[in-house]
């Protein structure tokens, strides 16, 4: 995946619950460690990013996490205010509160407006070169297509006005595979893989954004090679297990539980491997596929993000 960080804008998406925030936060941390001025933006302001970086609230204006790493949460009202001030130069300042909530309401009825404020803010940060790289913890499968396709869709809806005139430079940024890429996060499970494959297809069919890579998160380590697995199966034979228990003076049931736990690990791993095969087939050979191993230790917080960043760094 050479050149992932040569891009300027990365959208990390995938099914809910697969670790999108973890992957986005780790990519951001890694890029910052490699010397890039990096912005990580959480599109759904649920506070997951602040948990990932152990850093307290991440407001729209941004919060410094490390010297080169900034974290922010999307806020379409704040985005509108910034947009009006910087681009539309509309002199509305004091009364923005009720106006913004009114606007929010219109945005609900006319889909594409809220999405354009989200994507617009991100593209703006790229265009103004405030950062070398913007990593987006984007919405889940259901909504991300709408967001990324918004600059195309808006033209059908809005025939005049400033919003429409702003879409062409956004599209230029989003369309260029050297500038913008999508990263699909998934886990080796049925639904996440099915959605990842589906999403890969819809990205290219419905949005201007190109798929940069797929990250398979929480991949279990392979316990045994072929030969070892045969030995392991032999150990599960009651007669042999009895002998081992006797030799070590262990309770047979306790030893059985340990062996069954290993069997569960083997089964989960095998099940996951079949999904990863399906993933590989579904996204095609040319799309890079990165693996992040399952972390048995603490599963969230900055320590875990550092670990994932290091593992991703090895893959890159």
């Amino acid at each position: 995946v050479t050149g992932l960080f040569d891009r300027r804008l990365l959208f990390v998406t995938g099914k809910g619950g697969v670790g999108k925030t973890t992957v986005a936060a780790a990519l951001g941390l890694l890029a910052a460690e490699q010397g890039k001025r990096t912005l990580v933006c959480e599109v759904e302001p649920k506070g997951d990013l602040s948990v990932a970086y152990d850093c307290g609230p991440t407001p729209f204006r941004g919060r410094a996490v490390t010297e080169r790493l900034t974290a922010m949460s999307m806020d379409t009202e704040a985005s509108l205010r910034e947009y009006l001030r910087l681009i539309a130069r509309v002199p509305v300042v004091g009364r923005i509160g009720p106006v913004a909530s009114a606007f929010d309401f219109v945005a609900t009825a006319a889909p594409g407006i809220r999405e354009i404020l989200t994507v617009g803010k991100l593209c703006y940060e790229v265009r103004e070169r405030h950062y070398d790289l913007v990593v987006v913890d984007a919405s889940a499968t259901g909504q991300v297509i709408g967001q990324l396709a918004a600059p195309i869709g808006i033209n059908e809806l809005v025939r005049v006005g400033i919003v429409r005139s702003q879409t062409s430079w956004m599209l230029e940024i989003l369309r260029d595979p050297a500038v913008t890429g999508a990263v699909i996060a998934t886990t080796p499970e049925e639904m996440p893989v099915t959605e990842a494959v589906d999403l890969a297809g819809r990205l290219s069919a419905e949005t201007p954004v190109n798929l940069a890579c797929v990250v398979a998160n929480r991949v279990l380590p392979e316990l045994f090679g072929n030969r070892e697995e045969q030995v392991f199966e032999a150990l599960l034979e009651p007669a042999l297990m009895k002998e081992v228990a006797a030799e070590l003076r262990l309770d047979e049931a306790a030893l059985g539980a340990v062996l069954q736990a290993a069997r569960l690990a083997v089964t989960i791993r095998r099940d996951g491997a079949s999904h990863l095969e399906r993933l590989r087939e579904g996204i095609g050979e040319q799309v890079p596929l990165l693996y992040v191993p399952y972390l048995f230790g603490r599963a969230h917080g900055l320590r875990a993000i550092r670990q994932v960043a290091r593992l991703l760094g090895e893959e890159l």
Partner: protein
Amino acid sequence: VTRRHSELEQLVAAKEVIVACGPGGVGKTTTAAAIAAGVAAHLGGKVLVLTVDPARRLADALGVGGLGNRATRVPDEAFLAARVRPKGELHAAMLDMSESWDALVRRHAPDEATARQILSNPLYQNISRRFSQGHDYIAMERLFELHEEGDYDLLVVDTPPSRNALDLLDAPARMQEFFSSRLLRWVTVPYRSRLVNMASRPFYQVADRVLGSQLLQDLADFFILLQTMRDGFVARAAAVDRLLRDARTTFLLVTTLEAVPGREAAEMKAALAERRLHLGLLVCNKVLPESLIDPGAARAADRLAEASAQLGPGIAARLASGGDEVASAVVSRVVEEVAHSFANFRLVANREAELLRELSAAHDVTVTIPYQPGHVTDLASLLTMGSRVFGDEAEEEPAARRASGSRRTGARGGGPRRAGAP
């Protein structure tokens, strides 16, 4: 019959509606379907499961898919093929969002012509097909409709994945707010009087410039059409809200015991309590087996790790005598790996047990479903999962359940579960 079984039987006897909620990716849809199947099979009655976006395999298992809103009965033959003689009937339906919206419009529009105008409006089509908060409402609305029709003894409804768990609970209230909001009045007043309305002027200054007046005109036209349905919509949303609060309705919270979903589930639980909505059942899905936190097993794993080198030659000789030549180093490595893997999974199982203790209060009825590789591919696997919820199957208790001090019981017995042999 275990206590858990009877608690669930009591719950199902008292409730007519079960709303499944919880974070994404935890098996919510499958759990809802498994509970419905379990009730139909073992407790009886006419049960409907309303699913939102089932995986294809689950849709196939239930015999829905491409049917729109129409409910279909899962044939008794399917139960019999799974070696279960059902006491009741299982029906399944998928929620077709746009079809449900269209039905709502037809019901509340003052006349046929207005309904047609609304249905063909491009803004309406955008909302009914893409507006995800609207999906929360429509799921609850469809539930209400089915409950009104009164064809079923029990309705189990799966909910759409939302950005925010609260969206679902507040959807009916938000629908009522929508129709009474100031903005709706602003947008729908005739253009000329907008200029004299001081309150709305800043909005129009911004909106005209940013969106263009054409879009505003389109919006106004659309909202004027919508207002013709106002009374019906508001009354309906209030009724939907009442159903969610009704004593016959209960919520089923599904989660896994991982950190992020666990946190979301805790928030959801607090939100239910805050709104005085009834939490009937907490289901923790994909929980690791109890033997992982057993101290005796941990000692055995430690002992194996210490003795791996010592065990190698003996076991290798034993295998060789059975005609299987293998280096003792390979055997030692296998033994070491077994012990190491146990320690890894034990760590996760301990974390799960702790999370369950935090999540589940003393009076909650809590069920844990063990991790099961593989998928629900047919009614039989769905019924097996349902049996786990009801505790009918002799099954090892998952680790987290025993560790937790809250009120929960389960089917005890059986040896260590042979974990999902492929």
